[in-house]
């Protein structure tokens, strides 16, 4: 093991932190250069031409009935689950929680058990 350059802990700290910052700044510059010279990056969009006259409105799918209290996240998750089975958003007519009556829930659970 050769002799260390210095044994003053504060100087070691100062030099090392400076080197760490400089190397990572250099790496940041490299990343920016790669981005700058990237031949595959999407080109900046040209000035947008004036918008064409609006097309006649297509009849939109009816807005599904949404129960009060359902958060947009829950609606999004349910819509995604329905979409994963190949149905479009128009297939959803309404989203509402099922009746939370304990007896009915129990009956449903038993029915599902029998089918498995």
């Amino acid at each position: 093991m050769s002799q260390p350059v210095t044994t003053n802990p504060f100087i070691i700290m100062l030099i090392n932190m400076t080197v760490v910052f400089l190397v990572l700044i250099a790496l940041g510059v490299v990343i920016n250069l790669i981005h700058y010279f990237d031949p595959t990056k999407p080109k900046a969009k040209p000035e947008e031409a004036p918008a064409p006259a609006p097309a006649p409105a297509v009849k939109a799918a009816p807005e599904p009935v949404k129960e009060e209290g359902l958060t947009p996240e829950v609606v999004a998750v349910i819509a995604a689950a329905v979409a994963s089975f190949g149905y479009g958003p128009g297939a959803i007519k309404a989203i509402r929680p099922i009746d939370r009556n304990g007896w009915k829930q129990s009956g449903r659970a038993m029915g599902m058990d029998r089918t498995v």
Partner: protein
Amino acid sequence: MELFNAFVVSLQSVWTGSGFATFTGGHAIMIGVGLVLLYMAFVKEFEPLLLGPIAFGCILANFPGTGFLEEPGLMQAIHYGIANEIFPPLIFLGIGAMTDFGPLLARPVVLLLGAAAQIGVFVALVGAMLLGFNVQEAGAIGIIGGADGPTAIYLSIQMAPHLLGAIAVAAYSYMSLVPLIQPPIMKLLTSQKEREVQMEQLRPVTKFERVMFPIVATILISLLLPPIAALLGMLMLGNLFRESGVTDRLSDTAQNSLCNIVTIFLATGTGMTMSAESFLVPQTLLIICLGLVAFAAGTAGGVLFGKIMCRLSGWKINPLIGSAGVSAVPMAARVSQMVGMKAKPGNYLLMHAMGPNVAGVIGTAVAAGTMLAMLK
């Protein structure tokens, strides 16, 4: 009678050759330590993949008369892989194959947070030197603050091999305790308004950038800091396997089978350095305390620099992502996400924190390389 004497002599030779004849209190204590670590790993699930084999290695290392390190065999081969710095770069190969540098490439300014969090390394170094450790030992202890196990082991082997066991145990224990250590420091140093800062969506990163980065970074860092060329080179090679898109088999092997195999060897071998003679010394307690100081200082450094960047960017950077600069991938980024979500539900910081998190891995390796160049 002759038969009886032969029987007694045989029994005596079995006894004197057994571990019990030379078993000491120190061995018993270290086996106890191994059992406690096993409990922490498998019951409390503190980094079980690493702490488990380390704990078992610790138990194995404290059976007298095994001759593990003196006679050729598996244990000596494992020790060779540790003593000659073979395993940490191989682990880095796997880490590279698992790492997505995308968030860093999309916002390279967060590299500064990865650099700022390295202050913990040097605060612990100063503390260790003030407590009487020599400069090489202090450097090895300080690197615990980098929260990066393979780098800590890599540096310890070269600068203070006799402290390897204590440093590895401290590093992995604190890494598993990141969700407990970091949040109070993050909350203490930030205001509610700062924690609620919502960051903009990251720009998409092209495949060209993803492929070029590991190549150029390897060339740059290896030329600047040759002592860590093996470590950084393997990290970037693993990442290149992942990003090239044509080496899926290599990427899969590096991040799964190879990484798992090397983890078993590295962790077991590290545990086997925890013999009673080298571990049961007052220095071990100091190392464990300094490790905590290193983690806390690194977290504080990252968050404080994050506050500066928050102001300079016009409140576009949430200071909470600064704490992820201590490495501990991906745990530290998850902590940023958790604290951010608590301050403002729906404030998703995970991907933003992954940038400083992987910058911290590079920063710790750079800190280790600088110390090797200066102090070894």
